[in-house]
Every structure is written in structure tokens, then in C-alpha cells.
């Protein structure tokens, strides 16, 4: 055998297990805690679930109908890579009207396959292996894994219930090193329901500027605020060119399954993200984009109706948890309550498991959302008032039983 063949045989022996072919970055990713809990829930019947991170409303009919109409007219081809011009126009108009964040549809807006793709594109465009990506936690479960997949190093920043889970300039400053490059923000927050106001953002913007960071601001829940109008990080003085604003249609317009999102930012950043986008997915689905135009141009009233309904349920859930004796900060955005179960002496995982087994209610243990999540439970109130009332009844019964030992 010649030397090269020997080498090949050795390699083949080494790679006997399929896992040997995988990159370390994929191998090192742990299965999502949500997925694990999902499998557990699936073994049960008669469960009321507060575990769902999506609206319980169906996409308004006029939006669905717009997609059907686009199919009837045979609009089934690729759209331009950056997205239908009409949709980019509508996004630009909408962002300017709603959040005073003007973007040029020609070169500052990119339509993506959900907000998730937009975040992935931004990270892939920015990360040089070893770069540190700063992530306030508890947070949406994807940020750390996609950072790691891109070769970055996720750095969590713990936030606390006593601060309403707001990010503070001090805690941000404390984790910054010369390798820090990107800050990922998600306010209103999944899972805590925390929001940031103009005054909260000001000191953060200063730290971002002083340390030359780029910000990916995931504002998917921007429409879902209660009492306070959402303040976009991109609207802060000097932050527009440092920020990639990411949003989408899933939460505000009840369009999770359509996979339609967008990213807005400096033309050079958007151009870089567009390169990756066009070589990986080409463009977002055409019919979803036609639906998106309809949602943004004629769907705001329906959206307001849904926000009103979430607000009513939010009051019911917060009062419910407090009546039960579980501490619950008042969520001011998104559709999650994040009560503390520390008073019961159980970890969030154990509490969630026993609540499922003994109470028939599914809620997601807070520890899966990272630092600061332990001791909490994420409860989505995107479900009917009668479901919520029944769930609160069951949780009350379960906690009462726990207290009696």
C-alpha cells in the first residue's frame, strides 16, 4: 500500500461514527431545553399549555386571502433577493410611522425567512471566529447557539426581576473585553416581558458607542407593549448606523408559519447580509411576501384588536399568580409572564415537571433561557381567557398542595 492510501484507511477508521463527520460547533450545541420539555409534554393528555410562544389568533382572513389571490394570479416565481419592492416600501413606511425609524427600501431593508434568518445573517456577516457576542439573559433560546455556530463566543449578561429584567449600562460595561463586537438585544423580551424605554436606552447607547459595538436589535415583539409605546434602539441618537433592526410578522400579525421577517440597517451591512441570503435561500416565499404587504398596509386595526386582547389576559395572569402567592413582576411587553417559583423551594425544572405531572399545566422552566432564568417559569398568555382561568386554578391548587407538604 502506498502512503496516501494508508492515510485514507486510517481516516476512514477514525470516522466510523457518523458524529465524527460533524463540525465541533454543531456537536457542541446542546439540544434545546424547550425541545426536551416539549417531548415530556407530549406524553400527557388533558394538559393546558402556557408553553406556546406564538399567537393563538389565526392570521387575519384578509391577509390570508391576499396570499391566496397572489397564487390565483400565478405569482409563484422568485422575487428579487432583497424582497418584493412593494413589501420593502411597506416596511419602510410602517417602521417610520410606528416607531420613527426611517429606512430606505432601496438599500437598507432586506426581507428574510423570519426574523430568525435575519439574526443568523447578521451574525454570519459580522463574526470573526473568537469574537465575543454579548447577550442579555434570560433571552430567546437561539441567540447563543447561532452565535456559536458562526464561530463566535456568546457572553451572557444576567438581568434581574428587581430591575424588571432591564439591561443596565453597568452590567453591560462589566462584560466588555477587547474581543467584544456585537450586542444582541431583544426588547420587549421573550421570556420575561421586560421592555426598555428611551431613558433606559440612553446609558446603554453610550456604552455601545464608547466600546464601538454593533447592535442586533430583535424587535419582533415591538407591537406588543402595554401602556408604553415601544422605543426602538435604532431610534436612539447616533445608534442608527450601529444597529441592525430585526423584526417580522410572526407576533404582531399572527403569522408565525409564514416565515416572514426583515432586517434594516446601514447599506453596507445589509449588502453583506444580502450576499449570504441570496446564496442560501434566494428570497423569502413570494406568497408570504404578498401577504406581508397586505398585513402592513391594511392590517393595523386587526393588530390593535389582538394587542387589546393580550393586554386583558396579561392583567388576568399577573393578578392570578400574585393571588396564588407567586411573585410576578409586571410584564410590559410580549405575551409572557415570568413568575418566580423560588418561594416553593423547587428548581424551575422540577417545578415545571411536577406542575405538568400533578397539575396538568405546561409552562417552560426559566433556566432554559439562560442566566437569571433559574427559579422562574415562562407562561405564555397567548391563549383564551377561559384556558388561562383554568390554568391559574390548577396552578393555585398545585402550589397550595406544595405548601402543605
Amino acid at each position: 500500500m502506498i502512503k496516501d492510501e494508508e492515510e485514507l484507511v486510517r481516516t476512514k477508521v477514525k470516522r466510523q461514527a457518523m458524529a465524527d463527520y460533524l463540525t465541533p460547533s454543531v456537536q457542541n450545541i446542546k439540544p434545546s431545553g424547550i425541545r426536551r420539555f416539549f417531548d415530556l409534554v407530549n406524553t400527557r393528555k388533558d394538559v393546558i399549555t402556557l408553553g406556546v410562544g406564538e399567537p393563538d389568533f389565526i392570521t387575519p382572513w384578509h391577509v390570508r386571502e391576499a396570499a391566496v389571490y397572489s397564487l390565483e394570479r400565478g405569482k409563484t416565481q422568485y422575487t428579487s433577493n432583497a424582497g418584493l419592492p412593494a413589501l420593502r416600501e411597506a416596511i419602510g413606511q410602517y417602521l417610520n410611522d410606528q416607531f420613527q425609524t426611517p429606512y430606505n427600501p432601496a438599500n437598507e431593508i432586506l426581507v428574510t425567512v423570519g426574523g430568525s434568518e435575519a439574526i443568523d445573517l447578521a451574525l454570519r456577516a459580522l463574526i470573526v471566529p473568537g469574537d465575543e457576542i454579548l447577550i442579555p439573559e434570560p433571552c430567546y433560546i437561539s441567540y447563543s447557539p447561532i452565535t456559536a455556530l458562526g464561530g463566535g463566543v456568546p457572553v451572557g449578561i444576567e438581568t434581574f426581576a428587581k430591575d424588571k429584567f432591564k439591561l443596565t449600562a453597568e452590567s453591560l460595561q462589566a462584560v466588555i473585553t477587547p474581543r467584544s463586537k456585537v450586542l444582541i438585544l431583544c426588547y420587549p423580551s421573550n421570556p420575561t416581558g421586560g421592555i426598555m424605554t428611551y431613558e433606559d436606552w440612553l446609558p446603554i447607547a453610550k456604552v455601545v458607542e464608547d466600546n464601538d459595538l454593533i447592535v442586533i436589535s430583535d424587535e419582533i415583539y415591538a407591537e406588543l407593549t402595554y401602556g408604553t409605546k415601544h422605543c426602538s434602539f435604532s431610534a436612539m441618537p447616533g445608534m442608527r448606523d450601529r444597529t441592525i433592526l430585526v423584526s417580522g410578522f410572526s407576533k404582531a400579525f399572527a403569522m408565525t408559519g409564514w416565515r416572514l421577517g426583515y432586517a434594516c440597517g446601514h447599506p453596507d451591512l445589509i449588502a453583506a447580509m444580502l450576499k449570504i441570503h441570496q446564496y442560501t435561500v434566494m428570497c423569502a416565499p413570494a406568497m408570504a411576501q404578498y401577504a406581508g404587504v397586505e398585513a402592513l398596509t391594511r392590517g393595523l386595526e386587526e393588530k390593535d384588536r389582538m394587542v387589546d386582547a393580550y393586554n386583558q389576559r396579561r392583567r388576568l395572569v399577573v393578578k392570578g399568580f400574585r393571588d396564588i402567592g407567586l411573585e410576578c413582576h409586571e410584564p410590559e411587553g410580549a405575551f409572557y409572564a415570568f413568575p418566580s417559583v423560588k418561594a416553593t423551594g423547587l428548581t424551575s425544572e422540577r417545578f415545571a415537571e411536577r406542575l405538568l405531572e400533578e397539575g396538568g399545566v405546561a409552562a417552560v422552566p426559566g433556566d432554559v433561557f439562560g442566566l437569571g432564568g433559574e427559579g422562574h417559569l415562562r407562561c405564555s398568555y397567548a391563549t383564551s381567557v377561559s384556558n388561562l382561568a383554568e390554568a391559574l386554578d390548577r396552578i393555585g391548587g398545585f402550589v397550595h398542595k406544595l405548601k402543605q407538604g
Partner: protein
Amino acid sequence: MNELQLKVLELLKEDARRDADLIATLLGAPAEEVKQAIAELEHNHIIVKYATIVNWSKVDDEKVTALIEVQITPERGRGFEGIAERIYLYPEVKSVYLMSGAYDLLVEVEGKNLKEVASFVSNKLSPIDAVLSTKTNFILKKYKQDGIIFEEHEGDDRLMISP
């Protein structure tokens, strides 16, 4: 009517069984104010009745409903009011609307069977002096009533847990 009353009405329209405490929690308003709002709405006959929407087609009860278009000659001084009253006082009449367009009154009549409705039209409605003509349309199937869709075609198909 104030804003609170309007919101209370909307919540009761969705589900008439909601009590004042629950409504107060949902609206973030004091329970006493909600109780008073409901009392006023009832007193002023804005809330006329708490009713149940029934899908009778699922009940083993052979009812028929007709929508009857009625043309009438209005009365001097009272217009359509007197005739409308003569008609709506019959217990088999479920609703009466004054309409614009090709006819004047739309009368909803419910009966045990087709014959009973026909008999009402020929013996009671048509003989009224002011009634010029009637056109009876039977309802074959109800798809949606008062904003409620009868067929449950949009269930909750979401995953039990999702991000």
C-alpha cells in the same frame, strides 16, 4: 356611554357568563365600577338580555326559519311603526327590521315545520290591510350568526411548547 361601559359590553358580547370580577381584572378597572357599569347598562336597557347562541341544526328538533320580505303601505302619521308592531307582537316572529331597498320590512319567522310558517304567512301576515306583498325565503343552513361561525374549522393546532 363611557369607555368602560363600551369595553364591558364587548367582553360580555364575547361571553355573557363572565362575572364583574373577571371583567374588572381583564380591564384593570375597580370591580365596583364594573358592577355599577353593568347595572347601568341593564337599567338603561342597553343590555337587553343575556342569551345563548344555539346551533339548532345539531339539536334533534325540526325547526324551520324563514326570512320574509314584506312590502307595506305606511300609515298616515305613524309611518311603518304601527304595522311593524302588529307584526312583531306575534310570538313566532323572532325579529323585524325596517329595510331600505326593494321591500320595507324583513321579518324572521320560526315555526315547527314548513306548514306552520306558511300558515302564519297566509293567515296572519298577508291579510293585514297595509301589507301589499310578501316573499318567503326559507333558511337552509346557518353558517355564521352574530359573528359566531358554527363550524369549528379553525382549531388550535399550535405545538404544545414553542420558542
